[in-house]
């Protein structure tokens, strides 16, 4: 049988040592809701599991200036119910609660959810071609069953959608990701953390194999409190997004002073739309301009056989999110 080492790391340094020793074969494990699933399918086959649950990364604390620092091990359910998150970043709380099931949210961690792998059926079935799982093997989804797949940020090597709801909210909130390696810490803007597939769909983020996510900082924001997450799906709960939108607005009277817009279900990575934001700023918060922003957000969308409906649905989803946030729905 395949030999699997399990190591419970006492601190970050110990975890990083283990990860660095065999960076291609080791995997950190938090809640395990995604990793164990993929190991059972033989999609991920680590030789060493480095359990990081003992690391002191389960805190949510205020940082100077009013932002929040969230530890990588904070469980989705705890984060969703945190009073400061609910008060200042309702979009994040809503996105978390829109995802998975209560049991999964009780286990899933912030860090793990940032790195959640795609739900593409061809990625999960090892008998099928998948450039993400096996670089160079091809992409069976391009002309296969792609109803759930991305229309933005796609390439001819991969169209797998990023499945996380939480990520969409973090993309809208100007979050930054804290990463620690043996050589030290660095911070990456959340919207630069994930990579579009391009020619290397196997490379999903800027995180190096010997690095750990330690947390996320949400900056203070005057308008994140006016924020909403709208998710459209095939059943009322426990379903991945067909489309979703995370929106934050700052209004001056009825005019949009600032906007944050991110989309889910349609991007190969959590999809921040600066185009939509630009279309909104300085304009009246009304349906006409929301529709214009939605047009801008989906410009350049490249649908395939089964997911063509997502382009218009994403626009409608964004208009709904903007309308709810502006209080005109």
């Amino acid at each position: 049988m395949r030999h699997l080492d399990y190591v419970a790391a006492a601190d970050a340094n110990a975890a990083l040592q283990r990860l660095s020793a065999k960076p291609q074969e080791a995997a950190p494990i938090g809640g395990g809701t995604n990793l164990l699933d993929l190991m059972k399918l033989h999609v991920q086959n680590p030789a060493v599991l480095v359990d990081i649950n003992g690391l002191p990364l389960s805190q949510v604390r205020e940082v100077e200036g009013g932002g929040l620092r969230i530890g990588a091990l904070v469980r989705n359910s705890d984060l969703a119910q945190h009073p400061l998150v609910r008060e200042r970043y309702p979009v994040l709380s809503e996105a978390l609660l829109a995802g998975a099931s209560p049991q999964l949210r009780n286990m899933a961690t912030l860090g793990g959810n940032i790195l959640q792998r795609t739900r593409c059926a061809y990625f999960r079935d090892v008998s099928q071609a998948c450039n993400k799982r096996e670089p160079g093997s091809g992409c069976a989804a391009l002309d296969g069953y792609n109803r759930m797949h991305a229309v933005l940020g796609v390439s001819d090597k991969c169209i797998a959608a990023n499945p996380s709801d939480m990520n969409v909210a973090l993309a809208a909130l100007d979050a930054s990701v804290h990463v620690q390696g043996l050589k030290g810490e660095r911070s990456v803007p959340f919207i630069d953390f994930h990579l579009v597939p391009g020619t290397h769909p196997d490379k999903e983020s800027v995180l190096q194999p010997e690095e750990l996510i330690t947390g996320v900082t949400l900056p203070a924001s005057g308008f994140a409190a006016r924020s909403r997450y709208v998710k459209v799906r095939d059943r009322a709960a426990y379903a991945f997004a067909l489309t979703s939108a995370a929106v934050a607005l700052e209004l001056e009277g009825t005019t949009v002073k600032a906007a944050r817009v991110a989309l889910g279900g349609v991007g190969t990575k959590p999809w921040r739309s600066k185009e939509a934001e630009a279309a909104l700023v300085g304009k009246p918060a009304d349906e006409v301009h929301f529709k214009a922003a939605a047009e801008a957000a989906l410009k350049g969308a490249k649908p395939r056989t089964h997911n063509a409906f997502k382009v218009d649905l994403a626009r409608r989803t964004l208009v709904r999110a903007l309308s709810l946030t502006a209080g005109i729905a």
Partner: protein
Amino acid sequence: MDTSVGKPLGRVDGRLKVTGGAKYSAEMPEEGVVHAVIVGSTIATGSIVSVDVKAAKAQPGVLAVLTPDDAPKLAADPVKKQSPTDMVVHALQSRKVQYQNQPVALVVADTLERATYAAALVKVKYRAGKPKVDVKAEQPRAYKPKQINGKPADMDQGKASTDKAAATVDATYVTPYEHHNPMEPHATLALWEGETLTVYDTTQGVFGTRARLAALFGIPPESVRVVCKFVGGGFGSKGSPWSHVVLAALAAKAVKKPVKLVLRREQMFSQVGFRPETQQRLQLQAREDGKLLLVKHDTVSCTSEFDEFVEPSGKSTRMLYASDRITTSHRLVRLSVGTPTFMRAPGEASGTFALESALDELAVKLKMDPVALRLKNHADKDPETGHPWSSKSLKECYRVAGDRFGWAKRDPTPGSMKDGRTLLGWGMATATYPTLRSKASAKATLLPDGTARVLAGSHDLGTGTYTVMTQVAADALGLVPAKVKFDLGDTRMPETPVSGGSQTAASVGSAVKKASLALRDKAIALAVADPGAPLHGVPAAQVTVENGVLVSGGKREDFAALLKRKGLASLDAEASAEAGPEKDQYAMHAFGTHFVEVRVDPDLGEVRVSRCVGAFGVGTVLNAKTARSQLLGGIVMGIGMALMEETYLDPRSARFMTQDLADYHVPVNPDVPDIDIIFVPESDPHVNELGAKGIGEIGITGVTAAIANAIHHATGRRIRSLPLTLDKVLATS
């Protein structure tokens, strides 16, 4: 004394189930059990060139790797069937590959983990052919099956009307591939003691499994024992033994140890059947007043390359409405997939989507109320056989469900009813399912403590068999249910039919009732026979049994005292029950109706069912609680079939790419509203000894059409292919 039948008695096995005490087939304690894991094919059609088992065999703990090269040969060809409902199985007897994920090797190891890992190391080389995957594309090569469920594939009833049609409907409805997905995966634990085989199997048919295994292994049926104490849902997928059952027994023989084989969830999307895709063309012609002149229902569905299953979608069309002429046909195309099978209301669930949607389309064209249209065409006798109904309460069902729902307040104009921006839609449909029974036997035994033990080798699929049989036996014996222990699920018990076709309560219940009454009569005969006994000389007909006491006037003797006085360790009686001549004199069906409300988001297309009222005439209700649960379960499954259930077949590989319960959607709690279920009182002296009609399947029939009709009412959009997902709701705008 109070009778028990009809009362909402809680499940007698409920405590066992919620405490984990109920042992399912994969949990049966067996010393030294080892584990088998199936290697599935990764092509749909072709042949195996070679199987490299070296790496797998070298793994620690691996006991055997069976392949078509070295698997023990079966005594009989698994392509030949012992019973028409048997499935052709793939048990490593040939190198032929006929569907994706077909078993091509089997790894047996001392632990499940070792077997699973070793199975991943088996390398199979194939010569692949081009699979056939498209029902529509294969339609020119469609063939007419010899029969559907023992009836002709095609029927032409009545004759063409000379009346002029005022309205017509001609539309094609499509239902997708669906998988049963019971919570409990298929599981088999097989062990040999010499030439005797014991199989703990999760099955809806212990006796069918026994017969099939006996034939395939060339041993008499008495040498095979099949046990199944609990089933975690079957819905038809456990009706007859599939490949894994045979493989488990084969492996147990090869390694000479008890072998457990549990299917992985993704294997349940390939090896144990499914509801096939159907393409159904429905043509209706009606007079101005709604009278149907013609109903024409032509169904094409798929079967496998190596076996035959017909989804009989036209079945209910033959009997549901009166029409001058009714013609139905069924055609099959052969695809490179596993064999489809019975899935909850096979034919009725898929067929009523088409028929009941088409009727709604006709009602719209005629500007007629959909209920009025159905009443206008109410079949007062069975259009298929001409026989009178044994009982039928459909008109009353429409009335009480419509009243409870508030149907009279419906504005028929599509899009006219709203709650804020949300569109409301009200739709309805008829439900129907035949009342079936098969021969069944049971045995009842009185014990010295005055309690009774009743046996029938049947099954409890989670339906409540343990509970309702306890009630039936208790009433017949004159005991309270707590004094009756009913047991089932073992071929050593009296023979019963497969638990399919909603026939268990009717078939087994009738036998249980007869055996219990026979035992009661035996006890009475003993009680009155002996001089000196309390009831000596009393005519048997004047003795009643109340709460375990034989009573006549002031004279009494209880069961325990009787057995003690007679020095008996037990007293028993057996009986069989089966249909008599009434089956050829009456048409027997359960009928009902669904009224549903949907809420549709006009911008996002999301549909949620917000209200659901159903009324059913199902003869005697044996247990008000478990019966309601049966109908609830059927309706919830209908909501799933309507709104979300679909398995995607990749047209390039013929592989089902939906492989888990995160992607295969069934309703979750917020998808299901409060469901109001009304039983219309119905007394049926003809159907069986209990007067009970089967209720396991009628609940799902018609639900899809009621919801599709409600969506049309909400939006003006007619969607003719299931599931009714939001992209379809938005696309037709």
